[in-house]
């Protein structure tokens, strides 16, 4: 499928994401103006504040956007989603707005300002009638820069569940799907260009010299009115579309984490709920701990999780290897601390899988990780950033098996490490046990014979108040208990990641084959 066909086929969703994107940019820019312009004006009145305030705005501008999101999420009243995104966008937009307000006002000719004072205008009158109108083109130039920056930064807001066109871009990056990336990036670029051109037009309208020229020719008034009506129409249409997608209040909101398997599991739950006649809203691909935070905050009602992740990343307990005990402990503490029910295990684990090439495994007769320890000194290892940094990751693993490699393991992107192993660049990697690529690349998973890796059983987490409200939901979750084997999960993952098929279609077929 070429990118154009893809966009044609998905135009409705693209338009809706564009609407979300536009809403983020519009709201944040509006706030940045309400804060930034008065701040800038204050700085022209209090010279001593100018340097420190501009310095702070400058520093904010240099903080990388992902880091800024990271700082914002733990703050009270911020959390995830549009709110955090808007705050970050506002912080980025402040510098150009404040700086241009100061520059614009200070750029008003000295004789004009002196005349205004000498004519007996009050400070407020000078501001409103002289300085603001004359500084307007410069201030608008700042607004223009701020808006274009916001359109760009807003794509990254998808990482914290704020939606927008970045949703496509991130999904495309994860799935190596250029069509998706382009379907997000092209509308975003167009949006930036449109904002640039639109505000540029407004800017020249406010420029004194142009205004004089315009007042001399009256003919273009109709044309201008038509252009502005068209702009207004587009804004309203996109806004309405974005609102509509939120408006039809669903019975239940299902979330997922930001990787394929989590989306597939969430889709299983969503489709099963829909089969019972419930209206489901999907809020997928929430990064980091956002899915958990959203669940606790009541923004979503359920999402798929792994017991080991809950134990260590959420409850902050040390690793444990007893699957049963982990499950019971997580279930008990979630009920107590979060009022969240942990459903029965789905039947598979997604744990770290120590992988080697299939021909190596046969030639050297490798079955377990212990079998591999004597070859390790001649091997090179490549591990993902996650595995290198986690508590249940590399350090403990190397200690548990007394592993020594030829050199310090190469830290690389997880999906790249698969390709490096297959092509002989490295000899051992730590993948995910349900990854579709294990079969595709003919890799072999070595058994964790010393039971180092904690159990990562897949389960559904659901808010207890939702379960009380919707008894069907508990039945649905019970019915999915033990329904997915590790091999099945690998196949489903491969259908989506390898064959680039929509998760919804893959899950629909799976449910039919299961007779659900």
């Amino acid at each position: 499928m070429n990118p154009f066909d893809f966009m044609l086929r998905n135009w409705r969703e693209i338009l809706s994401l564009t609407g979300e994107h536009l809403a983020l940019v519009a709201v944040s820019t509006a706030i940045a103006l309400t804060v930034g312009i008065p701040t800038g004006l204050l700085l022209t009145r209090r010279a001593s504040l100018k340097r420190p305030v501009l310095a702070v705005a400058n520093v904010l501008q240099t903080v990388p956007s992902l880091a800024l999101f990271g700082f914002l999420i733990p703050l009270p009243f911020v959390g995830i989603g549009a709110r955090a995104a808007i705050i970050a966008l506002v912080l980025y937009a402040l510098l150009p707005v404040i700086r241009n307000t100061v520059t614009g006002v200070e750029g008003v000719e000295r004789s004009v300002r002196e005349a205004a004072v000498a004519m007996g205008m009050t400070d407020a009158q000078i501001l409103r009638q002289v300085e603001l109108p004359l500084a307007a083109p410069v201030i608008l130039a700042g607004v223009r820069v701020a808006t274009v920056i916001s359109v760009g930064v807003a794509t990254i807001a998808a990482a914290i569940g704020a939606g927008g066109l970045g949703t496509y871009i991130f999904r495309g990056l994860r799935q190596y799907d250029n069509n998706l990336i382009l379907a997000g990036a092209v509308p975003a670029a167009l949006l930036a260009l449109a904002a640039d051109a639109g505000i540029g037009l407004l800017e020249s309208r406010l420029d004194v010299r142009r205004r004089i020229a315009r007042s001399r020719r009256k003919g273009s008034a109709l044309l201008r009115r038509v252009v502005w009506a068209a702009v207004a129409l587009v804004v309203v249409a996109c806004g309405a579309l974005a609102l509509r997608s939120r408006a039809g209040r669903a019975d239940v909101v299902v979330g997922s984490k930001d990787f394929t398997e989590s989306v597939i599991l969430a889709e299983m739950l969503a489709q099963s709920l829909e089969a019972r006649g419930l209206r489901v809203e999907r809020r997928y691909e929430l990064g980091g701990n956002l899915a958990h935070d959203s669940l606790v905050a009541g923004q979503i009602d359920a999402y798929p999780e792994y017991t080991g992740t809950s134990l260590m990343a959420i409850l902050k307990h040390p690793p444990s290897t007893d699957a049963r005990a982990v499950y019971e402990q997580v279930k008990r503490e979630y009920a107590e601390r979060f009022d969240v029910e942990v459903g029965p295990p789905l039947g598979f684990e997604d744990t770290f899988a120590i992988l080697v090439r299939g021909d190596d495994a046969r030639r050297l007769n490798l079955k377990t990780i212990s079998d591999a320890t004597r070859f390790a000194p001649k091997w090179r290892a490549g591990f993902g950033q996650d595995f290198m940094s986690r508590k249940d990751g590399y350090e403990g693993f190397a200690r548990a098996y007394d592993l020594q490699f030829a050199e310090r393991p190469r830290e690389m992107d997880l999906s790249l490490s698969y390709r490096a192993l297959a092509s002989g660049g490295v000899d051992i990697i730590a993948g995910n046990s349900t990854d579709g690529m294990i079969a595709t690349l003919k890799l072999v998973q070595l058994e964790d014979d010393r039971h180092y890796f904690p159990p990562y059983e897949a389960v559904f987490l659901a808010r207890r108040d939702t379960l009380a409200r919707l008894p069907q939901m508990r039945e649905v979750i019970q019915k999915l208990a033990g329904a997915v084997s590790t091999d099945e999960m690998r196949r489903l993952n491969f259908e989506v990641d390898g064959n680039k098929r929509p998760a919804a279609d893959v899950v629909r077929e799976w449910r039919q084959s299961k007779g659900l």
Partner: protein
Amino acid sequence: MSSAPSDSSAVVSFRRVTYAAPGMPAPIIDDLSLEIRRGETLVLLGESGCGKTTTLRLINRLLVPTAGEVLVEGKDTREWDAVGLRRRTGYVIQEAGLFPHFTVERNVALVPTLEGWDEERVRVRVQELLRLVGLEPERFAARFPAELSGGQRQRVGVARALAADPPLLLMDEPFGALDPLTRAALQREFAALQKRLGKTTVFVTHDVREALMLGTRVALMSAGRIVLLDTPGGFLDSDEPHARAYRDTLLPPGESLSGFATETQRHGE
């Protein structure tokens, strides 16, 4: 003169005024006393940096003296409401300082509008003023300052200063940036205008011809002080060294001094 009691007809009185700008070693205005009488045109004449513009700015409270006091209508400028004082004090500066985003009409209408005059009254007044300064309202009212020549802009500046009929007019080298022909024309017209309106005017210039032509009295300033205060005739007869230096610049070879003085006097009256 500096110790003379302020008579009731003094519109502005400087009493031992000193003004020092922060960070400057010498005061810009140094112990200056001066009475400006109702209806006169007092010219402050002097070189750049002698303090004449600063003297002007002390009158409408753009500056406040560091010592001594400036009285306007018998009241210390510090006790005046700054905005109220400035609205009854017309002000014309060299660059005109017209608002570039206002039409000529709105520029002239500025102070009456601020004062809350009704629209019709403002409109009539603007027309009257534009005619007064020699600009046909039909041609000029809707123009923007950028569409005017330097001389026309300065006329608008004068009209704006006179708009609300202020009892006091301050002019800071209003014709300084104009070409000689336009300047001469405006000086003549302003002299005629002054005769009709009889407004108390303080006029700053470094051009001795202009000073002698427009002033009823000339205050010659140097280093923040008034070194001579006299009528144009008295100025020309004075032996004060600065005045003589200025006078010498007026002397074309072979022409008599008294003749020039008479000529100037006639023109001014």
